[in-house]
C-alpha cells in the first residue's frame, strides 16, 4: 500500500484526538488508532482494491449534519420491511430512542439488546471479546476505521435455548445536508447454544450531500445456534458504503446470510465466515443491482477449518448503464476439514453494453475427501425466452422486466420472512421499472 494524503485521511487524523465518546473501550480502540495514524489507504495498485474506485470517498471531509429532518412517513416506509419486528433505529450513528421500540418490550425474552456505547461489565467484556476474536485481518483499514471512530452500534445477545424470538430490525439512517455525513457503526451479535434469531440490518440515506458508511459487524454462534442475517442496502446515489462482517460458527451451528445491495454509489461488502467446530453450515445469498455509474462489490471468505461442515453460496448480479459489479469469493478447505461440502455460484445479467462485471470464485482445497464446486456466469437475457413471452402478447419492456425480476427471484424467493421478501422484490421491481428501457 502506498502512502497518500487525501482529504479523508486528514479528516481521520483529526478524529484520533477527539474526546467524544466511543462505541468500544480504549483497549480495543487503540490498536486501530495506531493503524489509522499511519494514514494508509488502499489504492487501485493494491490487487484487492484494483476494481474498487475509492476516489469519491477519499476526497471527502465529513462533518456533522445539524439539520436532521426526518418525517414519520419515511421511517414507516423503512419499517414496512419488517412490520412485526422489534425495531431499533440509528440516526447518523446515534441510537434513536424516539424511533426505536422500547427495550422493555424484550424483558424476560432471553434477548439482551443494547446500544454498544451503553454496555458495561460482563456484557461489555463479551462484546469486546467477540470483536477481538474476529477473522478480520490487521491490514483491513476499514475495520480500523469502524473500531477507531465508531460512536455507537448495537449489541445483541441471545441466551441459550431461545427459539422463535421476535426478529430484530436495525435501521441505520444517514442524513447529509451541506456536508458529507460519516458513520461507522460497530455491531456485535452473539447467539448462544441451540438458540435461533433473525436480524435484519437496513441502511438508508437522505439529503443532497455525500454519505460515508463504514460498518463492522462481529457475529458469533455457539454450538447448534442459528442466525438468519439480512443486510438490505437502499442508500441513495451519493453514498459510499464499505462494510466488514466477521462470523464465527461453532459446531452444528447454522449461519444464513442474505445481502441485497440495491442502492448507493459504491458498496463494498466483505463477509468472512469461519467454522470453529464440526457439522456447521453457512448459507450465503445475495443480489446486487446496479445502474448508471454504481459500483457494487461483494467479497466472501469461507474458512472450512473443521470437518463435516457445509457452505452454499449463491449470488446474482444485475447490471445496467455503466455500472460495475464485482464478485470475489474465496473458499478455503483446510487439510483436516474432511467431508466438506462447499458450493459457490455467481450469476450475472448484463442489461447494457457498458455494464461490466468481474467475477472470481475461488476454491483452495487442502483436504482430499470433499465435495466442492464453483461456477460463474455472465450473460444477457435469453432471447428465446424474450421471444416466447412476446409471442404471447407481452411487450418487450414487460418481458425484459419479467425475466430480470425472475432472475433475481431465484435468490429472493429464499427469503423466509414474507414481509421482507415482498419488500425486497418490490424494491427490485421498482428499480428495474426505472432502468429497463425497451431496446427496440
Amino acid at each position: 500500500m502506498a502512502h497518500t494524503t487525501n482529504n479523508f485521511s486528514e479528516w481521520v487524523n483529526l478524529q484520533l484526538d477527539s474526546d467524544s465518546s466511543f462505541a468500544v473501550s480504549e483497549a480495543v480502540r487503540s490498536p486501530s488508532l495506531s493503524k489509522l495514524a499511519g494514514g494508509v489507504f488502499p489504492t487501485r495498485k493494491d490487487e484487492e482494491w484494483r476494481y474498487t474506485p475509492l476516489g469519491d470517498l477519499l476526497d471527502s471531509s465529513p462533518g456533522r449534519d445539524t439539520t436532521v429532518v426526518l418525517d414519520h412517513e419515511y421511517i414507516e416506509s423503512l419499517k414496512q420491511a419488517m412490520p412485526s419486528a422489534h425495531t431499533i433505529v440509528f440516526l447518523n450513528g446515534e441510537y434513536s430512542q424516539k424511533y426505536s421500540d422500547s427495550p422493555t418490550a424484550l424483558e424476560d425474552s432471553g434477548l439482551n439488546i443494547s446500544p454498544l456505547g451503553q454496555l458495561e461489565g460482563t456484557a461489555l467484556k463479551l462484546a469486546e471479546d467477540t470483536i477481538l476474536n474476529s477473522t478480520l485481518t490487521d491490514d483491513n483499514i476499514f475495520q480500523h476505521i469502524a473500531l477507531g471512530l465508531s460512536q455507537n452500534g448495537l449489541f445483541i445477545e441471545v441466551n441459550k435455548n431461545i427459539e422463535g424470538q421476535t426478529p430484530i430490525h436495525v435501521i441505520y439512517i444517514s442524513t447529509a445536508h451541506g456536508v458529507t455525513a460519516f458513520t461507522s457503526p460497530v455491531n456485535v451479535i452473539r447467539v448462544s447454544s441451540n438458540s435461533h434469531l433473525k436480524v435484519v440490518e437496513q441502511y438508508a440515506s437522505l439529503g443532497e450531500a455525500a454519505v460515508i458508511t463504514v460498518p463492522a459487524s462481529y457475529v458469533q454462534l455457539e454450538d447448534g445456534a442459528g442466525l438468519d442475517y439480512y443486510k438490505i442496502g437502499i442508500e441513495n446515489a451519493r453514498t459510499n458504503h464499505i462494510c466488514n462482517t466477521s462470523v464465527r460458527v461453532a459446531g452444528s451451528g447454522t449461519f444464513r446470510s442474505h445481502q441485497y445491495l440495491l442502492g448507493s454509489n459504491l458498496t463494498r461488502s466483505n463477509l468472512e465466515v469461519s467454522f470453529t467446530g464440526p457439522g456447521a453450515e453457512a448459507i450465503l445469498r445475495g443480489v446486487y443491482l446496479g445502474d448508471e455509474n454504481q459500483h457494487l462489490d461483494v467479497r466472501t471468505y469461507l474458512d472450512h477449518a473443521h470437518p463435516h461442515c457445509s457452505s452454499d453460496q449463491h449470488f446474482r448480479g444485475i447490471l445496467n448503464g455503466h455500472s460495475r459489479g464485482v464478485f470475489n469469493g474465496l473458499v478455503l478447505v483446510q487439510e483436516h476439514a474432511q467431508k466438506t461440502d462447499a458450493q459457490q455460484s455467481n450469476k450475472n445479467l448484463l442489461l447494457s453494453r457498458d455494464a461490466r462485471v468481474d467475477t472470481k470464485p475461488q476454491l483452495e482445497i487442502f483436504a482430499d475427501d470433499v465435495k466442492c464446486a464453483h461456477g460463474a456466469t455472465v450473460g444477457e437475457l435469453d432471447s428465446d425466452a424474450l421471444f416466447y413471452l412476446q409471442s404471447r402478447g407481452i411487450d418487450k419492456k414487460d418481458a425484459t422486466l419479467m425475466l430480470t425480476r425472475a432472475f433475481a427471484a431465484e435468490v429472493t424467493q429464499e427469503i423466509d420472512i414474507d414481509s421482507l421478501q415482498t419488500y425486497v422484490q418490490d424494491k427490485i421491481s421498482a428499480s428495474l421499472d426505472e432502468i429497463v428501457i425497451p431496446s427496440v
Partner: protein
Amino acid sequence: MLSIKNLQVSVEEKPILKGLNLEVKPGEIHAIMGPNGSGKSTLAHVLSGREGYSVDAGSAHYKGLNLLEMAPEIRAREGMFLAFQYPIEIPGVNNTSFLKKALNEIRKHRGEEELDAIDFLSLIKKQMKLVEMKEELLKRPVNQGFSGGEKKRNEILQMAVLNPTLAILDETDSGLDIDALRIVAGGVNKLRSADNSFVVITHYQRLLDYIIPDFVHVLSDGQIIKSGTKDLALELEERGYDWLIEEAESKD
C-alpha cells in the same frame, strides 16, 4: 385471414424460404407437411415475428395488416398464436401469472376489461380439463421440469386460454403418444369455428386423422411443391416425399 405471397427468407445469408405462397381463409385448417429442414419452422417463426430472419422478398398479410412490420406482441394481440415446436423453459416466471399477464395484454388491446385473479383462475381451470393437464403444473415456472408431452399440452392450454383467430401449430404432435395426440387434437377441434383458422405443421399423417384439414401442402426446400386435400396426406404416408420432390424437380 392470412395471405402470403412469394415469401423469400434467409438466415445468415442462406436462403431458406424461396418464394412461398399461401392463402388461408376464415374457418379453414391447412396442414403443412414436408421433410426435415424444408423450412416449416422458419415459416412459423417469420409469421410470428422472431428476430434473426431476413425477409428478402414477398409479403405476408394477416387480416389485411402487414404482418412483417408488426412487433411480435402486436401480432399476438391481434389474435395470432404460435405453438412452438420446442417450447421455451423460463425459470422464475410462474406459469399462471405469465398466462394471466398474456391474456390481459390481449384483452386490453381488444378494449376488453382485464380479468382479475378469480375470473382468470376459473377460466384456466376449465381449459385445463380440455387438455387434461395436471393442476400442479400451473404453480411451476413456465415449462420448467415439464416432460415433452406436458410442454406440448401447455402450448395447447395457452392457445385455449388466449383463444386466437389464427393458430400455427409447429409439430405439436411430434414426441406425443397416441393418447396425448388425441388430447391435443381435441383441444384444437374444440376451438374450431367459422371465424378461426389453423395452420398445422406436421411431419406425420397420423395427426390428420384427428384434425381433419381442408387443405394439405407439401413444403420442400422452401417452396410449396404440391397442394391438395387430406387424401394427399394419405398418399404421402404411403409413398413418402421423394416421388413428389422428384416430380417437382423434373418440372423445373
